[in-house]
C-alpha cells in the first residue's frame, strides 16, 4: 500500500472501527438498556426489508422516541414521521435478525447520505445498531415471522440512466456537519476543463488534502492557505535534483552561456497541519531581488493556486531539503491533526518529523501566489535561530542547519577561474566576536565553503570582492566539522528583521582581527599568522613586474613611441610611476613548527621588512645570501596551501585580509 495514501488511511480507520464495533457488541450483550440520553441515537421502525448485493436495505420510519415508553395504542405508524432507508451490512443484519415492525436503535457514528435524485435519505455506517424488544409483541412475532424469508428484490436501473442520457450535474457538493455527509453522484464528462475564477473558490487550509483531491493534474479552482517559512533560490537546471550526499556538491557539465545565472525563486511553505511543501516559482532574471523577497515574504501567509505536483520526495532522497525541514521542527505553535473535526483540543506539537514532502511548481500560465505582505507575521513562522560561531562549532550532529552573522576576512576561489560562474566554489574565511575573544581551544577563524549549488546574488559577490563584509549566513549546513553553504542557504548583507538571537553576542568586532598562529594543528586550506626567521630563499621563484599606479593593470606594455616608457591599455595613458609587484618564495624557520620546512610565497602588497629585503635581492643585485639569512619576519597573514608529511613541509602564501 502507498505510504501516506488514502488506502493506508482507510486501513487504519477500519481497524479502529472494527475494534470499536466488537467492543460495542460486547457491551450490548452485557447490559441492554434503553438509551437515556438521545445523543445522536437514531430510532427507527422497520417497515420493509430487502437485500441487495450483501447489503440489507430497510425502509424505515424515524421515530421521535423509543416506543418502549409509549403505550401500545400510540405505537402505531404515524404517517407524518419521516421515511428513511437504512442500510445494514450482512454482518449487522445477521446480528440484528430484523423483521418488519422491529424498532432499532442506531448509535453514532452513523452517516446520512442525501442523494440528488432521491428524496429519501439513506443512513449508512450502521454498525452500532441494537434492536429493542417490545415484550408484549415478542411472542406473537416469534410465531408469525419465524419462517419468513428475506425478500430479495432487484433494483432495476433504467438503461437511460445507465447510458447517462439524463441531464446530470457536473458539480460536486460537499458539506460535512457532524455526522452528515451530503453528496451527489458525480459524473465528470469532457467539460471538466472549466476555469473557475479564483474569487469564488474556497480557501482550503490543508496541503495534503489539496494534493490528494486534485492529483497530479493540478488544482485550478481551489486555493490553499499556507505560511512562508523560507525564501531561497535554487539553481534551475533541466533534470536537476537536490542530491547532496556526503556534502559533495552537485557538478554538471558546463553550460555555454551562464550569464545571467539561471535560478528559480522557491518557497518553503507550511500549512496549519504542520505539513511542508517546497514551491518552485518563476525563474529570476536577477538574483539581487532575493534579499527583497526574503524580507517581504518570510513569515507571511499566502494563498497558493494553480500549482501542480512536480515530485513527492522523501527524507532519503532529499537530504538537503529535509535538513531544512528538521530545523523547523517541531512547530512553535500547536498544529491541527488531520482527520479530526476542527476541534481546538485536537491540536498538538507532539508529532514525528515529516517523512515526505511535495514539491510543487506553477502550471504554465498564471502563477497564483498571493502573499499578504501587509499582514502580521504568522505565529507558525520560525525565524532562523542565530548562534555565535563558537556555539555552532560545538554542535553535536551532522547535517544541521545553522544561521550566523560573521565578518568575512578573506575569500578564495577553489575552482579555476575558467569555470563558469554558476559552478564556482568559494572558500570564505569568517570570524565573529565569539571566536575572536577566546583564548585558545577553538580556532579564531573558520572556513566556510560555498558550493556551486548555493546561489549568491551579484550584490554579495561584488561586496565580497570589494572589502571585508559582515554577512548573514541563513541556513548554512554544519556537519563533519565543517560549515558549508549549499542549496537553500542564503547569504544576505543585512540582518533579517526577525531572528531569534538565542543569546549570541552579535556585536561588531572591536579591534583588529587576529588569526591563529601557525602551529602543529594547522591544516591545509586554512588561514594563519606566522613569524619566523629566514633560512633560505628560492631564487628561481623570484619574479617582479610593474603595474599601473592608477588601475592596477599588471599587463603593461612598452610605448611604441618611446620604448623607455610603459603604457597602460586600460587607462590609455603612459604610466610614469609604475607600482612594482614582486613574488618570491622564502624558507622560514618557525618556532611553532620547528620540525617542518616552512615555505612562504610572498607577493604583492608586502610587509615592509620583506619589501626591503627583496629590493635588496632583486634590484640592487648586490646581495649575499648570508645578509638575508637570519632576518626576522614579523606576523604575516597567510593562506595554507598544503601540509605534507614526507617531506615535512608547509606551503603558504601571504595574503591580505579584506
Amino acid at each position, binding site marked *: 500500500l502507498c505510504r501516506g*495514501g488514502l488506502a493506508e488511511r482507510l486501513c487504519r480507520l477500519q481497524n479502529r472501527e472494527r475494534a470499536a464495533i466488537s467492543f460495542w457488541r460486547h457491551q450490548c450483550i452485557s447490559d441492554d438498556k434503553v438509551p437515556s440520553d438521545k445523543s445522536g441515537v437514531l430510532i427507527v421502525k422497520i417497515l420493509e426489508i430487502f437485500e441487495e448485493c450483501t447489503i440489507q436495505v430497510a425502509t424505515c420510519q424515524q421515530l421521535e422516541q423509543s416506543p418502549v415508553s409509549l403505550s401500545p395504542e400510540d405505537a402505531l405508524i404515524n404517517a407524518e414521521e419521516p421515511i428513511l432507508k437504512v*442500510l445494514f451490512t450482512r454482518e449487522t443484519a445477521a446480528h440484528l435478525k430484523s423483521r418488519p415492525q422491529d424498532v432499532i436503535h442506531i448509535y453514532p457514528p452513523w452517516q446520512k447520505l442525501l442523494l440528488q435524485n432521491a428524496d429519501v435519505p439513506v443512513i449508512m*455506517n450502521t454498525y452500532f445498531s441494537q434492536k429493542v424488544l417490545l415484550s408484549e409483541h415478542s411472542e406473537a412475532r416469534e410465531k408469525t415471522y419465524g419462517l419468513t424469508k428475506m425478500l430479495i428484490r432487484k433494483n432495476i436501473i433504467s438503461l437511460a440512466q445507465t*447510458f447517462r442520457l439524463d441531464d446530470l450535474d457536473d458539480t460536486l457538493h460537499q458539506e*460535512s456537519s457532524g*455526522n452528515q455527509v451530503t453528496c451527489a453522484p*458525480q459524473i*465528470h464528462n469532457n467539460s471538466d476543463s472549466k476555469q473557475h475564477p479564483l474569487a469564488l473558490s474556497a480557501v482550503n487550509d490543508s496541503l495534503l488534502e489539496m494534493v*490528494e483531491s486534485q492529483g497530479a493534474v493540478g488544482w485550478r479552482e481551489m486555493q490553499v492557505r499556507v505560511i512562508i517559512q523560507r525564501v531561497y533560490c535554487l539553481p534551475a537546471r533541466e533534470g536537476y535534483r537536490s542530491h547532496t550526499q556526503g556534502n559533495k556538491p552537485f557538478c554538471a557539465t558546463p553550460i555555454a552561456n551562464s550569464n545571467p545565472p539561471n535560478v528559480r525563486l522557491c518557497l518553503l511553505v507550511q500549512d496549519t497541519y504542520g505539513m511542508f511543501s517546497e514551491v518552485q516559482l518563476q525563474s529570476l532574471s536577477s538574483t539581487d531581488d532575493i534579499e527583497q523577497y526574503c524580507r517581504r515574504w518570510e513569515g507571511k501567509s499566502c494563498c497558493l493556486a494553480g500549482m501542480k505536483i512536480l515530485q513527492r520526495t522523501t527524507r532519503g532522497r532529499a537530504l538537503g531539503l529535509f535538513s531544512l525541514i528538521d530545523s523547523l521542527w517541531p512547530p512553535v505553535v500547536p498544529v491541527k491533526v488531520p482527520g479530526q473535526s476542527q476541534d481546538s483540543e485536537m491540536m498538538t506539537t507532539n508529532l514525528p518529523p515529516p517523512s515526505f514532502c511535495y514539491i510543487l511548481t506553477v502550471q504554465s500560465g498564471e502563477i497564483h501566489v498571493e502573499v499578504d505582505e501587509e499582514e502580521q507575521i504568522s505565529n507558525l513562522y520560525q525565524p532562523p535561530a542565530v548562534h555565535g560561531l563558537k556555539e555552532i562549532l560545538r554542535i553535536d550532529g551532522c547535517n544541521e542547519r545553522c544561521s550566523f552573522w560573521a565578518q568575512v576576512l578573506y575569500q578564495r576561489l577553489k575552482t579555476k577561474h575558467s569555470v563558469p560562474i554558476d559552478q564556482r566554489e568559494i572558500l570564505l574565511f569568517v570570524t565573529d566576536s565569539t571566536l575572536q575573544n577566546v583564548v585558545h581551544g577553538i580556532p579564531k577563524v573558520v572556513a566556510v565553503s560555498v558550493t556551486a549549488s548555493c546561489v549568491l546574488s551579484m550584490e554579495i559577490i561584488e561586496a565580497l570582492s570589494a572589502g571585508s563584509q559582515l554577512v548573514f549566513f541563513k541556513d548554512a549546513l554544519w556537519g563533519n566539522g565543517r560549515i558549508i553553504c549549499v542549496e537553500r542557504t542564503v547569504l544576505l548583507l543585512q540582518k533579517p528583521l526577525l531572528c531569534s538571537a538565542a543569546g549570541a553576542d552579535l556585536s561588531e568586532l572591536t579591534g583588529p582581527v587576529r588569526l591563529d598562529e601557525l602551529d602543529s594543528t594547522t591544516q591545509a586550506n586554512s588561514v594563519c599568522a606566522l613569524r619566523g626567521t629566514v633560512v633560505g630563499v628560492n631564487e628561481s621563484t623570484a619574479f617582479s613586474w610593474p603595474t599601473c599606479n592608477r588601475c592596477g593593470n599588471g599587463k603593461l606594455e612598452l610605448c611604441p613611441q618611446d620604448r623607455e616608457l610603459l603604457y597602460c591599455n586600460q587607462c590609455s595613458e603612459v604610466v610614469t610611476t609604475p607600482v612594482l609587484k614582486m613574488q618570491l618564495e622564502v624558507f622560514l624557520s618557525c618556532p611553532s613548527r620547528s620540525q617542518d620546512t616552512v615555505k612562504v610565497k610572498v607577493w604583492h602588497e608586502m610587509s615592509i621588512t620583506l619589501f626591503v629585503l627583496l629590493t635588496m635581492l632583486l634590484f640592487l643585485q648586490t646581495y649575499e645570501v648570508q645578509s638575508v639569512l637570519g632576518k626576522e619576519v614579523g606576523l604575516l597573514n597567510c593562506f595554507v596551501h598544503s601540509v605534507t608529511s614526507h617531506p615535512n613541509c608547509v606551503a603558504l602564501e601571504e595574503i591580505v585580509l579584506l
Partner: protein
Amino acid sequence: VPDELLLGLKFIFGPCAVPALDLVDQRSVTRVRSPSGRTLYQVLGSSGKLYTCYSSCHFCTCPAFGFSVLQKNESLLCKHILAVYLSQAMGACQELSVSEEQLTNILLAEEEDEG
C-alpha cells in the same frame, strides 16, 4: 478527504474499498479518449495486468467482476470500477488520447479474450 467519507466507502463497497483506494493512490486509472469522443478506462491492476472498464455501462474485464458481480451477485462492483469512479471524482485520472483504430482495437481485444 474526511475520515467519514472513507468509512462510508468501506461500508457500502466492503472489501473493494481499500484496494480501490490503493489503485487511486498509485494513479492506476487512465481515461482513454479517441477523437470521436468515445472513452473508456484502463486500470493497471495490482498484478500488472491492464483491465478495461467501460464508461457507458457498468462493466470491467477483470475476472472478479465476472464472478462476484455478474454470477454470484455478491458485490455491486469490482475494485477497478470503484477506482474509476473515485479517480473521476478526485481528478486523479491519467489522460491518454488515442486514434479511433487504437480504441477499437482495445475494445475488440477484450472480446477476443472472453471468446
